[in-house]
């Protein structure tokens, strides 16, 4: 690996004080253009939104303990699941890994001093916050009850909830992920250190680069779709109104053209994090680096031709359904190859079971269950039975909560010493990781069974026969909540009283570990010289 020489040199690079001790004034945080501080701004705001969305989820789970809808009125239940969807998808999952770990680590991993456009990076956080304000305003104004999918003609003609405020909120936050995506693409293309060829990029950088491509290619279609809803509700110039000959399925096509690639925006960075963690904690180079890179790009690009599998029962033509089902089976192959490669990386390694590794191995189990159930839903006849049932809810929660959030937690625990210079307590971290694994399986496995039994999604009250599985699921949600609260406690505790972590506590490979922790303002004394591959673990 390159050795970075810390010699005093001309003043152009900042003196070696780290990016945190540069100042704690409001100005130094709210006007910073340092990608590391912007990562912290994002980390704090998405954590707030995460607990806001989780509270909505817990309330829904409490309501669902009893078959009759008695804790909440139907209106408030519908507003809760819409809020849970909107906040979790756009305000937590999509920015979670790219905007925090990605913002912090991508410039360091490619050997750059900062992002290509630091000011746009800060603007992206302000646009995110503005979107958040509008969404919270929508909640205060009575909440939106269209679900996070905003299906027409309900969202345009029949819903009289705060649809406009929520649509404007998501419209604005879309620009935040466009700006982040644009920054990542340009930084990866133009800011790589000498010697850092595409074949030597760590998989975390590849994953975030592919995610950035999807963000740039897919988000504009969501933006204009929400604009069309806003225009139909305000100016009355709608193109989805069936009475005017508009086509509700046209809305679904435009919405899912963004929303399916969006689920790959959520899972690809998680795959990048897991590759880094598994390679480091099994002391093995990643098995099949080229296969992993091709799989990442295949998932990103083929992710754009499968959206029709959300519309198998919606009246879409049978032949389009068959076409989309075929493509959906194909897009599952790269994910399977990646799972094979992660498992093969463990072969003949020297595996240690610190918290990040437990999160990574949990990811392996949970993501595979999520992926395999995706194959069930790709088979047309099964999707007819399972569409819009709890089977689908369980499938995407296994992938989003089991995959993306678990990997986000793993990445947070893996790079925490680098971000803060402090180490957290190993015992508590292991407990939290196991609580998350158990809680997740206990919450969402019963929902697979509910799904095949026919229980539809978004039901505020349900037939009495399903109550035993719903109670089990609510129990699991409690354990899951514990699994998320614990890290909040011991990680913030470690900020003050955690023991000092050296520059490389895990003895990991990668340019970001060549800097002191927490790293100096401009990351490297000299632009590092890279002369070998990313995972040279001996």
């Amino acid at each position: 690996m390159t050795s970075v020489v810390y010699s005093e040199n001309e003043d152009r690079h900042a003196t070696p004080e780290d990016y945190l001790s540069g100042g704690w004034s409001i100005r130094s945080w709210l006007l910073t253009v340092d990608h590391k501080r912007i990562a912290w701004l994002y980390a704090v705001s998405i954590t707030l939104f995460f607990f806001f969305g989780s509270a909505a989820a817990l309330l829904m789970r409490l309501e669902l303990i009893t078959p009759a809808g008695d804790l909440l009125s139907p209106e408030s239940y519908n507003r809760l699941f819409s809020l849970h969807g909107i906040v979790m998808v756009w305000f937590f999952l999509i920015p979670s890994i790219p905007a925090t770990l990605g913002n912090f680590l991508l410039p360091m991993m490619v050997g750059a001093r900062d992002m290509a456009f630091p000011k746009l990076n800060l603007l992206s956080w302000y646009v995110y916050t503005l979107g958040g304000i509008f969404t919270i305003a929508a909640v205060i104004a009575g909440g939106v009850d269209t679900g996070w999918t905003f299906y027409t003609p309900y969202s345009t003609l029949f819903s009289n909830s705060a649809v406009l405020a929520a649509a404007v909120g998501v419209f604005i936050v879309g620009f935040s992920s466009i700006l982040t995506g644009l920054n990542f693409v340009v930084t990866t293309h133009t800011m790589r250190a000498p010697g850092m060829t595409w074949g030597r990029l760590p998989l975390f950088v590849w994953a975030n680069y592919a995610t950035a491509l999807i963000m740039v290619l897919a988000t504009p279609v969501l933006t204009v779709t929400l604009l069309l809803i806003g225009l139909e509700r305000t100016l009355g110039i709608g193109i989805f109104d069936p009475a005017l000959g508009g086509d509700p399925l046209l809305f679904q096509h435009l919405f899912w053209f963004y929303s399916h690639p969006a689920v790959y925006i959520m899972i690809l960075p998680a795959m990048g994090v897991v590759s880094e963690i598994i390679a480091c904690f099994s002391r093995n180079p990643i098995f099949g680096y080229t296969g992993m890179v091709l799989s990442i790009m295949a998932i990103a690009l083929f992710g754009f031709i499968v959206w029709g599998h959300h519309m198998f029962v919606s009246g879409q033509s049978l032949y389009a359904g068959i076409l989309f089902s075929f493509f959906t089976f194909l897009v599952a192959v790269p994910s399977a190859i990646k799972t094979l490669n992660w498992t093969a990386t463990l072969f003949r390694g020297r595996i240690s079971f610190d918290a990040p590794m437990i999160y990574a191995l949990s990811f392996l189990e949970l993501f595979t269950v999520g992926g395999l159930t995706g194959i069930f839903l790709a088979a047309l006849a099964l999707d007819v039975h399972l569409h819009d049932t709890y089977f689908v809810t369980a499938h995407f929660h296994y992938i989003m909560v089991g995959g993306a959030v678990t990997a986000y937690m793993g990445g947070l625990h893996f790079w925490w010493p680098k971000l803060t210079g402090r180490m957290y307590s190993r015992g508590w971290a292991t407990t939290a990781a196991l609580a998350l694994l158990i809680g997740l399986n206990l919450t969402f496995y019963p929902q697979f069974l509910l799904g095949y039994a026919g229980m539809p999604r978004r039901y505020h009250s349900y037939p009495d026969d399903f109550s035993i599985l719903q109670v089990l699921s609510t129990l699991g949600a409690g354990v899951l909540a514990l699994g998320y609260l614990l890290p909040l406690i011991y990680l913030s505790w470690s900020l003050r009283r955690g023991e000092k972590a050296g520059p490389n506590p895990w003895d990991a490979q990668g340019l970001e570990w060549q800097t002191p922790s927490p790293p100096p303002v401009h990351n490297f004394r000299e632009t590092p010289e890279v002369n070998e591959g990313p995972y040279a673990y001996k």
Partner: protein
Amino acid sequence: MSSEAPQTPAIEDPQIGLKLIPEQASEYAQQVDFLYYALLGISGLLMGILAALVVVFAVRYRRSLRRERGELIAERSGRRLEIGFALLLCLSFIGLFYWGSQLYLHLYSATDADVTIDAVGKQWMWKFQHPDGTREINTLHLPVGETVALRITSQDVIHSLSLPAFRLKRDAVPGMYTRAQFTPTRAGTYRLFCAEYCGTDHARMRGKVVVLERADYQQWLAGKVDVPDRAEAGAQLFQSLGCGACHKADGSGLAPALQGVFGSRVKLADGSEVVADEAYIRDSIVEPQAQLVAGYQPVMPSFSGQVSEEEILQLISYIQSLGQSREADEQ
């Protein structure tokens, strides 16, 4: 926005206990369950292999053993392993894809059915209409053994008729007919849900499907007060709306005669040809000029907004009853 808050009928859930695999109330349901078990088997196998590998590797290669490391898999054989695994997956996926799409086509592509039932979704109830004019809300009585074709549409937002026992689900989309057909093979009471979120009482828009033996079904029909069957209701509407003034039986009126028009090929003013199926007739009632018949003036006024979805279906049944043309029989 929706003006008055429509009232939602009481829910009558079938008391059939928690059935993790819903009853196989039709032969098609059995086929879907075979596909489900096959996929469960494959997934179980793959999960088992993955879990075994991870556990074995975790135990044998844990760092605390301080054992000398063996040789890693060579680059070439590693690539072969990946490509082999990918090909194996592609082959099994193509098989599963073919199996799934065959059943899908069987369920949704139109075949001739013994009885056509109209299902109209409306904010927060399902309205069913039998050929003999019987109407039901949130409950559907069916005889065993007859192939039932569902003609599904919605009056307001998108709903989705879900019959888990028949492994069947079809969205009700406003302004469009969607179809599905199934053949109940076992008598009993099964669940009926609305699966697509449709507003406040989406959760209360559910009921039951009652499949009766043929004799009980006739008895149930007899028990019903005699209500004019759908085609007769259509005929009455045809007169009351004054359609007969132009659509004269002998074709001398301003509009084409409708005898035997259902299912026939109609030549349009812009030179194209179209089959006069339900969708064409519905569009002609709601949007007469869009597909004008060749040789006629665009004088027919639109009835959209004056006739409800059920009444349009009654008119269609009446036109159907005026004799199927020869092509429709061969289809």
